[in-house]
């Protein structure tokens, strides 16, 4: 079975693809059958992914340097060979496991959450399509396949954010997400093309061997390669919601909550991180690009955390938290640690999707009223949601022994190590402190939300909250187990843990830095206590605090006015430019095109008259043609000079 799974990993994305087709083409009128097909397919994919994972672990670190690669040629011509296939190594096996598990949980959860929705079947069809696209992205052995599936997950995200398309805000959010991420994808495609032009291949393994010695293979300078890396990074900036293209992610919460948990917390948004991780050699070769990635990540982490503090909707807070945590992962990659970035990606997927699903459970209980200031005292009414959500909060705050503790400390550790490096030491020192502050802020805003929602007395008595049904509670429990124990696989006392498998370069046994552990734990506990003090114990009025720090509060509450700035730019600059181009298009371009079109039509009708229908005319043309050709060929100077007029090369 393990061997079968390893050599047939292409089945993992194929099964959801079949489910999608079946649901969409055949079983759309039957919601229950659709859900059954969707869940069965992703369950089988999950089983296969587990076996792939076991196979990879059993093989030791054999797959790290020599991935199991199976490709078929998709398209071939001189100088260009494009392949599609499967690359199995520890990183992709980890992703396969994570994506299929979260997708399975979300599929089960949706049974309860989407119950009674008119478009229940369509929802499952899109979920299956998404699973197919994401799993296809994960196993891609080259950048082009990755790009194809990258666009497909973008499409699924668009379809699912706008799932309730009758809602104006959902439509707008879907468009915003699509357009914003596409802006970044433009850069990604450009970067991919530049790599193809310069290196002649997009295969990840081959590129990994060529890029460190790029001066042997190409005429690129260090600056040139840095530029390519930076352009390529635009894609991840858009997809993984990094500043300044993060604006779409909070709005994407307009989609159904299971979608937010699956796509906008655990899987699609980490595609950017995954892509950077997959092409980390490119960034490592040019330290400037590396520092750029680290800075963007570190800045985004802190920036989004400061916004999350003041938001008043659970899903919005979680969304900004996701942006912030994605920044964390980028920071780890930018510090040169594939292990750090991927480890946090892995643990984050579980506790963040857990919290989203928990938030969905709360929303479900509160008739979809999103304002947290109307909640309160949910602890007694929804014990399962309460306890699992608490686990999620503790995990993201980085409290021992929850999953986030290990992955967050790993990131702080690698950034600290980078700050002792030869290049950009000052920058990495700054980033280390930014990351530490972010960790404290994270613990604070999470427990702020936690205390407001679950503790105290119900603020609005008109709601009658109830615990989630089994289909929704079950995924919460499963994910909370992973949120508690998921970190152990990378714990320092494990001999061959996460970092042994998912790594770039030599294996270093994780070291223990007590200073970081103590400082981060104290900061997290202090923040939790502060949150309890303000929102749980209500020792200080939060309104008074907001008053006191009014300017800061307002900036944070209004998300630094980034959306407003963009709107202003779009209205004043882009619209004006658009109008000018529109005029040019209508008068000049259309004029020329219509002119050519009309000319072609007129010419066509004239030439048509030659076709008289009379046989003798046809025969005349036939023989006249022969005679003219003979004359031309006889009189044409057959020396190459005149022939080359027509393009002959010799």
């Amino acid at each position, binding site marked *: 079975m393990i061997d079968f799974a390893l050599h047939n990993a292409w089945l993992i994305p194929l099964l959801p693809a079949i489910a999608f087709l079946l649901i969409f083409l055949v079983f759309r009128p039957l919601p229950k059958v659709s859900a059954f097909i969707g869940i069965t397919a992703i369950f089988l994919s999950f089983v296969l992914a587990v076996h792939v994972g076991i196979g990879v672990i059993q093989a030791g670190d054999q797959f790290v340097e020599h991935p199991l690669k199976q490709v078929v040629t998709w398209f071939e011509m001189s100088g260009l060979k494009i392949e599609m296939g499967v690359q199995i190594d520890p990183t992709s096996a980890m992703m396969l496991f994570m994506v299929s598990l979260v997708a399975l949980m979300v599929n089960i959860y949706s049974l309860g959450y989407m119950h009674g929705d008119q478009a229940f079947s369509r929802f499952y069809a899109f979920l299956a399509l998404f699973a197919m696209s994401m799993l296809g992205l994960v196993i891609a052995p080259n950048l082009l396949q990755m790009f194809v599936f990258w666009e497909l997950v973008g499409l699924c995200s668009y379809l699912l954010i706008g799932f309730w398309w009758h809602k104006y805000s959902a439509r707008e959010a879907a468009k915003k997400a699509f357009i914003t991420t596409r802006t970044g994808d433009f850069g990604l495609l450009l970067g991919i093309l530049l790599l193809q032009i310069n290196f002649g291949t997009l295969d990840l393994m081959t590129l990994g061997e060529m890029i460190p010695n790029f001066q042997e293979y190409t005429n690129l300078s260090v600056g040139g390669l840095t530029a390519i890396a930076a352009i390529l990074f635009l894609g991840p900036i858009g997809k993984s919601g990094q500043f300044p293209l993060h604006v779409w992610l909070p709005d994407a919460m307009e989609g159904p909550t299971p979608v937010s948990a699956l796509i906008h917390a655990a899987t699609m948004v980490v595609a950017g991180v995954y892509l950077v991780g997959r092409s980390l050699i490119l960034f490592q070769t040019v330290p400037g690009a590396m520092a750029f990635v680290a800075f963007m990540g570190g800045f985004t982490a802190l920036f989004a955390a400061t916004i999350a503090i003041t938001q008043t909707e659970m899903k919005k807070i979680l969304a900004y938290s996701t942006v912030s945590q994605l920044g964390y992962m980028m920071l780890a990659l930018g510090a040169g640690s594939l292990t750090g970035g991927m480890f946090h990606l892995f643990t984050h997927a579980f506790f963040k999707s857990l919290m989203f699903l928990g938030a969905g459970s709360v929303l479900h209980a509160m008739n979809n009223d999103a304002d947290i200031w109307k909640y309160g005292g949910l602890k007694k009414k929804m014990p399962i949601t309460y306890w699992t959500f608490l686990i999620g909060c503790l995990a993201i705050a980085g409290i021992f022994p929850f999953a986030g503790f290990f992955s967050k400390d790993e990131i702080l550790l690698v950034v600290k190590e980078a700050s002792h490096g030869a290049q950009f030491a000052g920058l990495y020192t700054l980033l280390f402190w930014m990351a530490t502050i972010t960790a404290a802020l994270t613990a604070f805003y999470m427990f702020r939300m936690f205390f407001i929602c679950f503790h105290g007395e119900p603020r609005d008595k008109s709601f009658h909250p109830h615990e989630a049904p089994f289909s929704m509670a079950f995924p919460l429990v499963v994910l909370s187990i992973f949120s508690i124990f998921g970190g152990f696989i990378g714990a320092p006392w494990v001999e061959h843990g996460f970092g042994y498998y998912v790594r770039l370069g030599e294996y270093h046994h994780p070291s223990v830095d007590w200073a970081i552990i103590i400082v981060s734990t104290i900061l997290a506990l202090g923040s939790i206590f502060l949150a309890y003090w303000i929102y749980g114990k209500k020792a200080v009025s939060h309104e008074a605090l907001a008053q006191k720090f009014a300017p800061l509060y307002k900036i944070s509450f209004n998300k630094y006015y980034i959306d407003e700035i963009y709107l202003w730019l779009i209205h004043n600059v882009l619209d004006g430019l658009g109008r000018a181009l529109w005029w040019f298009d209508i008068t000049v371009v259309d004029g020329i095109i219509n002119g050519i079109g009309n000319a072609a039509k007129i010419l066509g009708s004239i030439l048509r008259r030659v*076709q008289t229908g009379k046989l003798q005319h046809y025969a005349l043309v036939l023989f006249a043609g*022969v005679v003219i050709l003979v004359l031309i060929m006889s009189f044409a100077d057959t020396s190459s000079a005149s022939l080359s007029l027509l393009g002959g090369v010799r």
Partner: protein
Amino acid sequence: MDLSLLTIEIATVLLAIGVLVIGLLIPREQRFGLGYLVTIGLAIILFVSFGYYGINATAFEGMYYVDDFSIFFKQLILVAAVLVTLAATLYVKKMGTNYGEFFVMTVFAALGMMVLSSAGEFITLYLGLETMTISFYILTGFKKNDSKSAEAGIKYLILGAMSSGILLYGLSLVYGMTGTTVISEVAVKLAEMGSLSPAMVVGMVFLVAGFGFKISAVPFQMWSPDVYEGAPTPVTAFLAVGSKAAAFAALIRVFMIAFPDYSLQWKMLFAALAALTIIIGNLVAIPQTNIKRMLAYSSIAQAGYIMTGVIAANAAGVRGVAFYGMLYVFATIGAFTVVMNFSANTGSDEIRDYAGLARRSPLLAAVLTVCLLSMAGIPPLAGFAGKFYLFSSIVDQGYLWLVIIGLLMSMASVYYYLSVAKVMYMADPVDDSPIVVPAGAKAVLLITMIVTVFLGVYPQPLSVLANLAANSLFF
């Protein structure tokens, strides 16, 4: 001599004769069932032919090639014949007479094409050509009571005879100058002679004209719109793909094997003709109101595109021709099957009568749209990949100007292709009655559509076969 090399041809002959005899034994009104027999027989032969890849031998002392190139084109012809016979059953039934003979003549035409694509010698080549052409004379005028069909038959017969005369004259000139009719020996003799004599130039031009007639290259295309319009639609489909592909196969072998040293001259000739063919075919297609005439002009333009692969005169170019030829089979037969079934139901071939077809028969409208867009070269359909292979084979040989003409005219072609789609999808139907499509035709429609999409998305399998074909020609 190993007769087993000729298994494919022998089996085809036996099938034709067998069907002819069986046709006499069974009652008249049941004879349309012979179509299925022919389809199955041809499909079996097609299946068997896969075993002939990689043999690369000659029979009859070099007079007859059994190489990957000829096998590829034979398969192309067989695919076309299978699809046409499967799609035509209802049409032939409505035509009323001589079911058996119709299918027998189709098989004989296919046999002629096979011989043409395998010929290594001028007489054999001419035999194949005439077997094919005479079968088509009969098939074109098959609707005896229809004046258009009769007119088309007569026109094709007379003009075809003239073009055969020109071709034969050209062949005899080449024979006269070199003293051999074996294609590969012509090159040797020409090399010994050193320079190109005027008679050889004239012979070469005559060959171009003779083949140009079969592939309907401008200015030898005059016959094709009239014949395409008048002939029974299944015949038109087979004529458009089969006879064209076989003529291309023979043309490639003759010019690339017999005249490689004078490629500069004939490349110039073909480049000029290709440009003319692409321009005139596309421009005149625009004002057409009859879909069969429109498809005839479109097919002229397609021949122009395929000629670019001949101009490249290397393996990449031949690969392009083979690839494009095969996908052109699917797109064209798909489109003509739609036309066939539409006219069998409504009796009309006018584009304006296709109004609202999307509502009357979503399948017909979808297949026609996909096939037409593939001919226009819109990705991700097969036509895009095909044009990509063809044009990229001549770009680096200095024929950028021809590529630009090809691309511009492809853009123009989108206009008349999409006009049909617009009528089918946007306009309201005059008559709401659904269109009945028999099972055989339905299968053909689905196959052509799926293959056209599949080869666009994943061209590699066909590309591998086309590569084999091209490489066998250049060793």
